[in-house]
């Protein structure tokens, strides 16, 4: 087994590997640390040290050291980190090709690419999901009878559901890898605006836009899609005062971040686009304009008269007043799934490698300061509408020690 690393224009790339196990660049060769590295420190109930946590690192294409996926329990010591990053990406069929996902890579390069302000995100919000051999839906008339297209999908979104960040801030890092049997394929890392900065959309009424403050950064652009987040009115309607008297926590406390992402050439032409919905049950927050920072905690609902032990509060003892970040709270955002939705590429003439800014714009064929390397298959799938189903719907990433913020 051997690996050869080649430095090209300041980039360290994997050159070769052989044998059964993939070989990735040695993180000890890092020329420095990314802003996202080393930001996690253990909380009161977390038994792992920061050093153990930081041992889960990968080398970014820029040669910097980045945090990456780790299990919620360190297998070497048995200590707990108190947070999880979703599904272990090493089980994805794409992992051999794409390697560990560096968390915060697009954030790192935002300003160098010409954006006028930084945007850094916390560590625990990076969430991975993947599925192999996903049978896609081909919606065009007749195509569903004739075609059978499958895709391997590996995605990562920074989706914090514990803080007020997403109430106002719409720029979130997404890493999206997809390879399909029809040659549709791309690997994209961008900081994508989701919906309108400074406002959220009520998850129980998508027509209700709720101003929540000033986004950080204030120059965040509008994005397509929306961040549908429960608010106090949703809680009132579906938990506290449901029409049939039956509280429905999953209906009320469900976030759906609905993205509309495109990677574009410098002339504005779309090279690849996708619009996944990242959905979360049991977030540890909902929006309440009457609270400081608009931040309210679902666990408090379990102590409202009439709701003790009901629905998602089952198992929460009325006599134990759990704090919002208690591992015993059911509200810690560990039940997640992704609607893969559309995957489009318009790149028949190639090349497969494009360099864009962190927002996925200004795509060129040569790297430039702050650019991010994107891979897009030299293919055009405009002849049919390729949609993916939900993945991960039945999974929970709960584990011993996991608690909000997660």
């Amino acid at each position, binding site marked *: 087994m051997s690996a050869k690393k080649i430095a090209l224009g300041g980039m360290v790339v994997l050159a070769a590997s052989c044998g059964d196990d993939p070989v990735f660049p040695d993180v000890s060769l890092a020329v420095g640390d990314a802003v996202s590295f080393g930001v996690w420190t253990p909380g009161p109930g977390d038994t792992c040290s920061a050093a153990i946590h930081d041992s889960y690192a990968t080398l970014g294409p820029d040669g910097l050291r980045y945090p990456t996926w780790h299990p919620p329990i360190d297998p070497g010591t048995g200590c707990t980190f108190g947070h999880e990053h979703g599904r272990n990406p090493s089980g994805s069929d794409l992992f051999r090709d794409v390697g560990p996902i560096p968390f915060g890579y697009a954030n790192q390069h935002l300003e160098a690419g010409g954006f006028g302000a930084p945007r850094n995100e916390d560590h625990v919000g990076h969430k991975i999901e993947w599925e192999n051999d996903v049978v896609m839906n081909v919606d*065009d008339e007749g*195509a*569903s*009878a*004739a075609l059978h297209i499958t895709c391997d999908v590996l995605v990562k979104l920074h989706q914090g559901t514990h803080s007020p960040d997403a109430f106002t801030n719409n720029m979130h890092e997404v890493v999206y890898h997809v390879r399909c049997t*029809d040659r549709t394929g791309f690997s994209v890392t961008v900081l994508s605006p989701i919906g309108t900065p400074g406002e959220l959309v009520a998850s129980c009424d998508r027509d209700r836009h709720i101003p929540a403050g000033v986004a950080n950064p204030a120059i965040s652009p509008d994005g397509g899609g929306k961040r549908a987040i429960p608010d106090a009115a949703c809680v009132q309607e579906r938990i506290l005062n449901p029409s049939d008297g039956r509280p429905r926590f999953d209906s009320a406390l469900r976030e759906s971040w609905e993205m509309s992402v495109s990677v574009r050439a410098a002339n504005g032409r779309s090279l690849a686009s996708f619009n996944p919905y990242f959905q979360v049950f049991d977030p540890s927050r909902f929006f309440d304009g009457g609270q400081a920072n608009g931040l309210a905690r679902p666990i408090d609902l379990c102590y409202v008269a009439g709701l003790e032990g009901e629905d998602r509060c089952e198992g929460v003892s009325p006599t134990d007043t759990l704090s919002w970040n208690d591992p015993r709270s059911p509200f810690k955002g560990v039940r997640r799934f992704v609607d893969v939705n559309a995957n489009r590429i318009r790149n028949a003439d190639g090349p497969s490698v494009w360099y864009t800014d962190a927002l996925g714009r200004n795509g060129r064929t040569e790297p430039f300061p702050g650019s991010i390397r994107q891979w897009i298959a030299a293919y055009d799938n405009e002849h049919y509408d390729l949609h993916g189903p939900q993945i991960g719907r039945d999974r929970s990433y709960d584990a011993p020690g996991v608690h909000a913020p997660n």
Partner: protein
Amino acid sequence: MLLSCTVCDPERELGPSVGVAFGTYADSRLRVGLEGGLWANDDGEVRESVYRGGIVAQLHPRPDSGLHLVAGLGWSGYRAELITYDAVRLSLGAGWDLPLTEGWVVGNRVMLDAASFGSLQNDVGEVASSVGLSVVTLGLYLRRR
């Protein structure tokens, strides 16, 4: 019916088929003619159809036997709403004649229609290339002597 390509539905679909042929005797053991036929299936809400047309020959290796071999060359077309496929087709098969009356025979036949090198198209363009289409038919026929 089976479509074959890297992105084609791998399930073989079952459905009814009808056909008609007109021809003449080239000699006492060989018949030649023109044939056409249709196969159809409902896949969910989508109606799939395969049309075929071309020339066909039937050879009796032994004049006193009902056994005959069938070969054909022609066109096959697949349709599923906006999805289309058209390609040259080869047919091979065998059958057995059973006398019914002085002027008619009945029989059974197994046929393989195979087409390749076509592409699936829709109203926008090519959906899949290097597509094969095969239809296996088990049938009964009525033929005038």
